[in-house]
Structures are given as structure tokens and as C-alpha cells.
């Protein structure tokens, strides 16, 4: 996110008379609306299909429903109070105040410093909140009560996402530390993936986990989901420049390139380890690469993007085939294995590969050319996110679970499938 930089530059401008009244830039407005639409499609279409294709046919609608409803609920929460908590005036460095509930005090005619409407900024940020919580669903699919999920989404966006977004982007205490996170590697991917793991451990394993074969309903859907995620990620990363300019163009190119490098890397890993290059692997690789490049997109050059992309797959591959087997948690669709692990790599790799010139003003790398200092800052912001997310997700899930009388469906429902038992529907009548 370039918020930091934007603030810097508006400070710079502040000495000039016209600085506080940015003029509408139709090109930037056009781009930011499209970027928002692109990030939107990532959730109810991209992620929903990516996940749905991996679940068993008897739970396919429940999977889509969790993602779809997360998008809708998070959007409502965001407009009503989430945005205010994240971007309202700072309270103790931890959270924003509630002044902008219902977007109170923000006129449709307000413009951000790059000359596009504040309402578009709000909509754009809302799609980030939505996908973050939706990512977490991938870890707890096929066994979680739908009512618990709904409660969790509302609470989590309010009490976990909004504070973290505030700390990192909205003027909170991490805001001034100079961490480099171009488009939300920490706030979105590590955050969502880790919340998934915590929830997966608390809710427990699926019946038959590691024993019976749980075959994916259709990897065709997963591949289509990955393609749509890739498509939407252009808005996610290049949109996080908040302008249609050269940095956005660079972020765009690097995003595409890193994703491609990661997809091919996973294909190769599959080939060497198992002798069979899977389509699930290619799709997972693309996503891992996209996750890894997210914090770095606008800061790196071709070599950096290549290494970050390949590393995303390498670590993601290890996350879903190694780490998971080691600890035997049931991170069903690997939200943790892909989003957290590749996101962690990306956050650290950003410190390693960001170019001094492209790094935001205010970061140790940009201001003093201090790469070691930068790495320390990157680690700090990772550590804060991890601690905060683990603790708060556990609290929030516990509350959601109590409100709804337990987070888990009955064993019979799990065996029969959540589509028919919870939703009264079946995925396919072909």
C-alpha cells in the first residue's frame, strides 16, 4: 500500500496553497474503479471456485457459500463501521475511532490525494477486508457450522482485520516504522492464512483426515478460480499504487511475472517429487507466487520478482506437503500453507529485494539505504501481526462458537455432507 507514501507526499505539498484540494483525475479514477472491481471478483468468483474445486462434491455449495457470504457480510461491516475503525482518527495507536460509522462525515465529493474519490478508496479497501476473512475459510471447510462462520466473519473483520489495517495503514503504531508492504502481504495474506490455521486447530480435524481419500470435486473449477484470482490480482497489486502511473505499471508486470515463475516452479517440484505435474499444483503455484509478490510488487525488478515468485512456490509447496504432514493439523484447503507461508516469505523477501529508489520514503531502505534495518522492520511487523492475529482470532472464534452453540457440525452431518444438511441443496444434478 502506498498510503504511507501518499501521506508523505501530501505533507510535502502542504506548504503549497492548493495542496489540500486535489483535482479530479479521470484516469486515476478510472483505474481505481476498475482495480476495485478486479479485487471484488477475486472473492465470490476466484476464491470461491479455487476452494470449491478442492472440496468434496458433498460440500461444494457450503464452500462457495462461506466465501460468498463472507464477501457480503464483510462489505456491510466495512461500510457501517469497519472503515471507520481502520481509517478513522487514531486511538492509542491501535485502532481508529467510530467517527466515520456509516461513512458519516465523508462526502461523495471528497477526493484522495491522487485525485480519485474517497468513496472509491473505501470500496477498494472493503474488498481487501472481505478477501482476507474469506481466505481463512479454506482451513476449516467441510466441518464448520454456517452460523458460527457468519458470527466469526462479523467479529473478525471488526476485531482483527480493522485493528491490523489501522496499525499498518491507517495511522497506527506500525504506520511510522517504515515497513514495506506494497499491497498487503502482511495485512491480508499472512493474516488470513494464520487465522485459518488457528481456527482449524480449534475446530479440529475432519473425520477421516489422513485416512480416507478426500477427492476434490473438480480441479477444473480450481484452475478457473486460480485464473480469476490472477486476473483480479492485477487490481490488488497495481491498484495499491492508487494511481495509474509508472509504479503501478511496474507492479503490474512484476505481479504477472512472479505468478508465472511460481506456477512453473510448482510444476517442476511436483514433477521431481512425485513424477506427476498436477494441475492443482500449477494453480496452487500461481496463487503462492501472487501471494509472495504482493508485499513487493512495486519495489522490485525482474530478478527480484523471479526469485520471490519461485520462492513462493518452494515454501508454499513445503507448507502443504511437508509442514502439514509434520504437525498433522487439518488445514483443509491450505489457506495457511499457501497464504501464510508464501506471505511470510514475501514479507521477508521484500526487505531483501526491494530497490532503494522504489522503496517508500520513510523506510530505512529508502532513507538511509539500510537494508539490515529494513529487514528488522519487516520482521517486527510480521511478528506483531502473528501475535495479534493468533490471540485475537482465538478469542473471536471462541465467542462465535459460544454464541452459536459450538462451531462444529455433528458427525452425521459431516458424513452426509454439509450441502444437504445445512443448506438443503446438492451441488450437482447432472
Amino acid at each position, binding site marked *: 500500500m502506498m498510503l504511507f507514501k501518499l501521506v508523505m507526499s501530501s505533507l510535502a505539498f502542504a506548504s503549497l496553497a492548493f495542496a489540500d484540494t486535489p483535482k479530479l483525475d479521470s484516469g486515476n479514477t478510472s483505474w481505481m474503479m476498475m482495480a476495485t472491481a478486479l479485487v471484488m471478483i477475486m472473492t465470490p468468483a476466484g476464491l470461491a471456485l479455487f476452494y470449491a474445486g478442492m472440496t468434496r462434491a458433498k460440500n461444494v455449495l457450503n464452500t462457495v457459500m462461506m466465501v460468498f457470504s463472507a464477501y457480503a457480510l464483510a462489505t456491510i461491516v466495512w461500510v457501517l463501521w469497519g472503515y471507520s475503525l481502520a481509517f478513522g482518527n487514531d486511538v492509542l495507536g491501535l485502532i481508529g475511532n467510530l467517527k466515520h460509522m456509516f461513512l458519516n462525515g465523508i462526502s461523495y465529493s471528497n477526493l484522495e490525494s491522487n485525485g480519485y474519490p474517497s468513496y472509491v478508496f473505501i470500496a477498494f479497501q472493503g474488498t481487501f477486508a472481505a478477501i482476507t476473512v474469506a481466505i481463512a475459510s479454506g482451513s476449516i471447510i467441510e466441518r464448520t457450522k454456517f452460523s458460527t462462520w457468519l458470527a466469526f466473519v462479523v467479529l473478525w473483520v471488526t476485531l482483527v482485520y480493522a485493528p491490523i489495517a489501522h496499525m499498518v495503514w491507517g495511522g497506527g503504531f506500525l504506520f511510522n516504522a517504515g515497513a514495506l508492504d506494497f499491497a498487503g502481504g502482511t495485512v491480508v495474506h499472512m493474516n488470513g492464512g494464520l487465522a485459518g490455521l488457528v481456527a482449524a486447530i480449534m475446530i479440529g480435524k475432519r473425520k477421516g483426515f489422513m485416512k*480416507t481419500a478426500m477427492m476434490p470435486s473438480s480441479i477444473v473449477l480450481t484452475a478457473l478460480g486460480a485464473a480469476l484470482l490472477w486476473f483480479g490480482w492485477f487490481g490488488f497489486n497495481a491498484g495499491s499504487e492508487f494511481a495509474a502511473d509508472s509504479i503501478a505499471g511496474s507492479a503490474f508486470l512484476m505481479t504477472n511475472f512472479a505468478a508465472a515463475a511460481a506456477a512453473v516452479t510448482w510444476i517442476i517440484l511436483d514433477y521431481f517429487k512425485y513424477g506427476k505435474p498436477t494441475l492443482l499444483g500449477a494453480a496452487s503455484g500461481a496463487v503462492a507466487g501472487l501471494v509472495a509478490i504482493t508485499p513487493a510488487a512495486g519495489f522490485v525488478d525482474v530478478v527480484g520478482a523471479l526469485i520471490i515468485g519461485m520462492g513462493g512456490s518452494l515454501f508454499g509447496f513445503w507448507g502443504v506437503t511437508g509442514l502439514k504432514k509434520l504437525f498433522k493439523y487439518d488445514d483443509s484447503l491450505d489457506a495457511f500453507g499457501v497464504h501464510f507461508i508464501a506471505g511470510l516469505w514475501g514479507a521477508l523477501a521484500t526487505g531483501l529485494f526491494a530497490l532503494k529508489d522504489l522503496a517508500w520514503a520513510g523506510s530505512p531502505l529508502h532513507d538511509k539505504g539500510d537494508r539490515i534495518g529494513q529487514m528488522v522492520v519487516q520482521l517486527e511487523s510480521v511478528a506483531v501481526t502473528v501475535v495479534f492475529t493468533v490471540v485475537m482470532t482465538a478469542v473471536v472464534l471462541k465467542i462465535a462458537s459460544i454464541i452459536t452453540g459450538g462451531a462444529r457440525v455433528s458427525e452425521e452431518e459431516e*458424513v*452426509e455432507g454439509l450441502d*444437504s*444438511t445445512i*443448506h*438443503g*441443496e*446438492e451441488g450437482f444434478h447432472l
Partner: protein
Amino acid sequence: MKKIEAIIKPFKLDDVKDALMEADISRITVSEVKGHGRQQGHSELYRGNEYVVEYLPKIKIEVVVNDDFVEKAIEAITNGAKTGKIGDGKIFVSPIEDVVRIRTGERGNDAI
């Protein structure tokens, strides 16, 4: 030679197969069928209309054995498939007059 046909609950297939293997019966043919009996189906919704699913998914197992394996097979299937609840299914035994192994052309008991 007899054919033993069993209609069982889908999630019991693995248990039944394992039980048959232990009884030295290793060749089986399995198919998906739908059963209608005393067990009640769940209902599906479409636009607020509730449709009871009258036919429940079941698995049919077919295994052809020599006469001295019949009781063993019945016992194995029963053990594997039993939950004690309605809908556990049935086993049917019927006569088989001849068997041919296509690969070798063998006939009768040897071909099973």
C-alpha cells in the same frame, strides 16, 4: 457357485471390502444404486419448495463364490455393513450355473 448381492450404506463400503478380504474373498464388483425402503431420505429445497429425496444412495456389491464360501461371505458382509440402524440393507443369494474367465477361457469353479 452362488452370487451374493448386497445392498449397503455407501460409507460402509470400505469396512465391507476389508471384511471380505480377510475372508479371502478378493474379487468384487461394486455399483451405485438408489434404494427405497423404510429409511427416510433427507429433503432438498428449491426456492422454498421442499422435495423429499425418496431414493437414498446405496452401494451394491456383487461377488460370485464357490458354495463353501457363501456363509463366510454373508458373515463378512454383515459384520462390515451393520450399524444397527434402519437402512443397513440386504444380502441376496442366488444360483450361478457357470462362470467363464475371459482372459483364459477357464470355466466353472476354477474361474471364480
